[in-house]
């Protein structure tokens, strides 16, 4: 029995590995946006007055509100993870919902901001923009690409968090799959599931050489709705890391585009 428990534990998702993978992905995002910030820096150096002049058309108030919304969503995201860690499923889901709603409000604000710009004839390649100086065109080109790509990230983040919401809400179940090389170690014995009182709930057939693979799926009954799947926590932590990265990018975008007048 000792051996079997060890086997199953080996099979659990390594949390550390998942997190390292997520951080590595975030670094590629850092380089993606980093390249754009480089373009911004170079063009701002070449056309300082044009950049200052173009930025006066951006609404500082909306920008500030959106900054506050994203920072707040980062707080609720962190709280959602902390709540899940402490086993408070309801609070975790509530905080996650607020995070998604904050993302939605951010996107609605962005929608109105962009459409106002379009009504004033400011969009890439528009006549109104082409009448303006080269530097202002570059400013708005960068503005639309960078805030657009950032907005896309917010949208993707919202979808990821919504999927995680469903995962966490659903009754947890565990799937255990043992392949032949793992079964080799427990040849001649049986796999069993016991509850906390060491009462055997289920026992498998004798594991012999003919057995190639074994799959076990555990589902909790309704009265255990508050039970939390530890795999969901890892997923939520990684989803949170992505959401915070989106927040960090906005922390830089906001002063660089809205506050240089």
């Amino acid at each position, binding site marked *: 029995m000792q051996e079997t428990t060890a086997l199953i534990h080996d099979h659990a998702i390594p949390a550390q590995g998942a997190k*390292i993978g997520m951080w590595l992905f975030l670094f590629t995002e850092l380089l993606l946006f980093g390249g754009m910030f480089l373009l911004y820096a170079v063009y701002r150096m070449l056309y300082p007055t044009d950049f200052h002049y173009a930025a006066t058309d951006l609404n500082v108030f909306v920008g500030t509100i959106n900054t506050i919304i994203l920072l707040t969503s980062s707080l609720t995201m962190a709280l959602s993870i*902390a709540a899940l860690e402490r086993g408070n499923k309801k609070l975790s889901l509530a905080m996650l919902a607020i995070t998604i709603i904050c993302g939605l409000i951010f996107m609605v604000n962005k929608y109105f901001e962009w459409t106002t710009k379009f009504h004033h004839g400011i969009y890439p390649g528009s006549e109104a923009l082409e009448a303006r100086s080269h530097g202002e065109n570059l400013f708005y080109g960068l503005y639309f690409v960078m805030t657009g790509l950032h907005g896309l990230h917010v949208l993707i983040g919202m979808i990821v968090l919504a999927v995680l919401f469903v995962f966490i809400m659903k009754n947890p179940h565990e799937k255990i799959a043992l392949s032949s090389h793992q079964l080799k170690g427990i040849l001649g014995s049986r796999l069993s599931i016991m509850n906390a009182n060491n009462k055997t709930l289920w026992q498998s057939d004798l594991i012999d050489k003919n057995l190639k693979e074994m799959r076990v799926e555990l589902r909790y009954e309704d009265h255990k709705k508050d039970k939390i799947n530890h795999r969901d926590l890892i997923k939520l932590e990684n989803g949170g890391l992505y959401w*915070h990265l989106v927040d960090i990018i906005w922390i830089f975008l906001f002063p660089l585009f809205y506050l240089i007048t």
Partner: protein
Amino acid sequence: MEKQSVHTSPSYTLYIFIWLSLLVGTGLTVAVAGVNLRTFAIVVALLIATVKTTLVIFYFMHLKYEDRLFRIMLIFAISTLAVILSLTFADIIYR
């Protein structure tokens, strides 16, 4: 032993405190933008943004509570970005 477990995370209150600090930082950025600091303005804006980012990474993203490996990875990534940015920028200036 408990303090060394993987899932040790800061208290709710600490998170709210960090959030308030971030809001103060935002207010500061907006306020400073109103003051005419000329070329110094961008330095101040980026400095505040960096402080805010540090708070987000260390507390919200749990870096403070992770293995040293994560910090080394982050330093490596930021250094790579810094090298790319500074070399390209230098090329533009001295061309």
